């Protein structure tokens, strides 16, 4: 029996289509797996079902009756419970309060019924008895828990909805083996109760262990739905990648070997910190080293740590022959590091200020300038902006007057006045248009040709394949595979990323 059916659901944020055409049918008593690469629209689809994102178009049917979901409350009313990937917990509330937050038991219409709340929460806490770990108790504050314990609370919270349709968006990413096993036992129980379950995971072994059917989403479109028993990992990955997975066209176009005669630009030796561990690599002058893998596997954390914006617990970073112990970004900039983040709003743009001021801060720092003389600075700023075909009305217009792509060009231009030795690119093309992307990569390749060492993390595999000389695939905070030469294919990249951690 069909529990939930979506057809032709779509969602756009401004000009970017997050979901082009989402179709999904979940039966009672099945675990339905959603698969797709980064940004393919899985989470958007889940959020539409859960009511926290309003779709632009499409139909939703529950038990074959068409419904409209106006918000998370109405979704709950329709019997939908969800585990959010980014969690939805109140850090200063206790575990039991968080579990029952959506429907606090009340007495006399006004007061929280503490006894009932305790009793209700205990039912779900008991499910994870013995695997929750030290310090986990009903009255512990969620903010004091470890990441895996917080994830368990979010699971309990989703279970407490007792909804006939349950969505789990990457519920196992921080859990250990025993916790995952317990969770899967619970899922099987739920299946027996004829609930419909949507499950997202990037671990092929988990999907095999618990899933019944799989729906594959690519570029915001539902591709197909398969029976997991009748398929294998390789063909699933091939469907996610698209038909041309191992065709020559999807192979890397960048030269596999660069001339190493110029020496190394940066050596990273056994580096560990928050979010990554035991990472070692070296990047030659003139080389573009790509970081691949799923989102949030330590690539950004590593780049930020090298730049002095994150923390390093052990290991070393060498620039040339000397150690770079960047205690702050300021320090790293002085030593010749440059960092461009895809999150412009947080890490790059000085909002509300003119373009010229957005190009010059690094120049100020490196040349220890004290006085701003716009006429002199203009001679340095203009060529830097022109080298990327940046479009702007005048240097004194606010940066917010530019499009996302042009803003990012301005941010990159600030590193071009005084050349760095190493350029750290942290998903630099996030949310910018195609022509700006082309300009950016043309510049990046040119900078490499001029002898910079470049570390490029991109969430779009095509960008890595098109530009990187070598690719390190990250999984769970460390490098799981290095792709060189003819190995740099779309298929290999996906396979390495989706391997069980």
């Amino acid at each position: 029996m069909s529990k939930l059916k979506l057809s032709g659901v779509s969602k756009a944020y401004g000009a970017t289509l997050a979901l082009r055409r989402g179709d999904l049918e979940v039966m009672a008593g099945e675990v339905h797996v959603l698969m797709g690469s980064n940004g393919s629209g899985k989470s958007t689809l889940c959020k539409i079902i859960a009511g926290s994102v309003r779709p632009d178009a499409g139909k939703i049917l529950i038990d074959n009756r068409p419904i409209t979901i106006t918000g998370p409350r109405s979704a709950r009313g329709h019997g939908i419970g969800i585990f959010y990937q980014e969690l939805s917990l109140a850090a200063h509330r206790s575990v039991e309060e968080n579990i029952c937050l959506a429907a606090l038991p009340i007495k006399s219409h006004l007061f929280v019924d503490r006894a009932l709340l305790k009793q209700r929460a205990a039912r779900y806490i008991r499910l994870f008895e013995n695997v929750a770990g030290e310090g986990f108790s009903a009255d512990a504050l969620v903010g004091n828990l470890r990441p895996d314990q917080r994830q368990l609370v979010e699971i309990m919270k989703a279970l407490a909805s007792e909804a006939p349709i349950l969505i789990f968006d990457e519920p196992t990413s921080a859990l250990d083996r025993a916790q995952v096993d317990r969770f899967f036992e619970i899922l099987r129980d739920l299946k027996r109760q004829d609930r419909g379950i949507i499950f997202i995971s990037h671990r092929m072994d988990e999907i095999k262990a618990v899933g019944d059917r799989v729906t594959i989403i690519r570029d915001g479109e539902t591709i197909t739905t398969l029976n997991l028993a009748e398929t294998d990992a390789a063909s699933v990955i091939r469907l996610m990648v698209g038909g041309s997975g191992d065709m020559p066209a999807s192979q890397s176009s960048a030269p596999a070997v660069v001339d190493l005669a110029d020496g190394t630009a940066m050596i990273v030796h056994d580096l560990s910190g928050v979010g990554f561990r035991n990472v070692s690599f070296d990047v030659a002058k003139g080389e573009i080293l790509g970081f691949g893998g799923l989102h949030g596997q330590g690539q950004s954390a590593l780049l930020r740590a090298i730049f002095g914006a994150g923390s390093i617990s052990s290991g070393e970073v060498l620039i040339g022959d000397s150690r770079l112990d960047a205690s702050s970004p300021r320090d790293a900039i002085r030593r010749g590091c440059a960092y461009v983040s895809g999150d412009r709003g947080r890490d790059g743009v000085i909002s509300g200020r003119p373009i010229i001021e957005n190009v010059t801060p690094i120049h100020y720092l490196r040349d220890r300038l004290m006085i701003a003389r716009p006429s002199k600075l203009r001679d340095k700023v203009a060529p830097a902006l022109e080298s990327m075909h940046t479009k702007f009305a005048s240097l004194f217009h606010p940066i917010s007057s530019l499009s996302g792509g042009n803003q990012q060009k301005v941010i990159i231009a600030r590193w071009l006045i005084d050349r760095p030795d190493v350029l750290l690119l942290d998903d630099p093309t996030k949310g910018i248009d195609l022509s700006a992307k082309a300009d950016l990569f043309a510049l990046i390749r040119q900078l490499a040709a001029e002898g910079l060492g470049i570390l490029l993390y991109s969430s779009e595999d095509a960008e890595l394949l098109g530009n990187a000389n070598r690719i390190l695939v990250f999984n769970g905070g460390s490098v799981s595979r290095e792709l060189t030469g003819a190995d740099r294919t779309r298929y290999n990249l996906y396979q390495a990323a989706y391997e069980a951690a």
Partner: protein
Amino acid sequence: MADVAVTPRARAGGIRKLLERYPFLPALVIVAALLLLNGVFSPNSLSYRSLTGLLSTYMALIMLAIAQTYVVYAGDIDLSAGSILSLVNVAIVVLMERWGGGAGAVLLALALGLLLGLACGLVNGIVVAALRLQAIVATFATSIFFTGFALYILPVAGTPAPALFWRTYGGRLLGVPFVFYILAVLVVLLLVLSRTRLVTQLLAVGDDQQAAFQTGLPVVPVRIKGYLLCGLFSALAAFCITGDTASGDPLVGGKMTLYSVAAVVLGGSALSGGWGTVVGSLLGALTIGLINSVVFFMGTPSEWQNFVQGLAILVVLMAGVLAGRRARA
């Protein structure tokens, strides 16, 4: 050896647990220390009579700090709390005078005062939560509006409140000063409120608004209810100030708004929301009152009093921050 290594950590954990349960403990210690200081400079200041005076003077600030706490719970702020106080103050004084100042008139005026406070809270709530304007600027704007309304009702300060009203507030009942009854009722009221679903929801919204929304909490109504509580307690604060000053003044509350915010922070609540206690704010307001009293009893020359007051508040704030940080480390 193992025992030796474990004990200090266990003790630190105990303090941390205690602070998590009672975040107002540092404020309580500071209030005790300030009382002690008062006693050192002027033993007379700890007498029953002086403490009664202190309480009846600062009861309005206590109420206003509590009012502020409920919006701060949800991560909002109300810069119009003091103006609501002024508005209710002049409104009830004018109404009481117009209706003759009898018991019935007083009670009716108070009831209307409460409604007026609630109405102001509703305006703030709609402007901030429903129209999604920035709380800090939007309530600043409504504060100007409320002040204008107060000036319209009573252009110049000075209309006296009926004797019945302020004599009751400043007097005794069964030999016990009336403010102690107010304090007792207030404590019961706060206890009752702290068990309501609304307070838990306010704190959850302040913790992470997006998470609360995704959890399915009615975020907008919850925030509006926070502002309603704020308006209600601002009106109660107005009753106290009317009892204390025995007159109407359309600008009496203006200065008190930021004191109420300071009291909330001194009481250990987080301005970012999601964390705090009303008892802490009560103690924070008392802290401010006691600082003023210490400054007075120290015999600080009047031109230096503001300077010392400001410095003392900074010192207390720092002490609170340090205590909190040590507990969390």
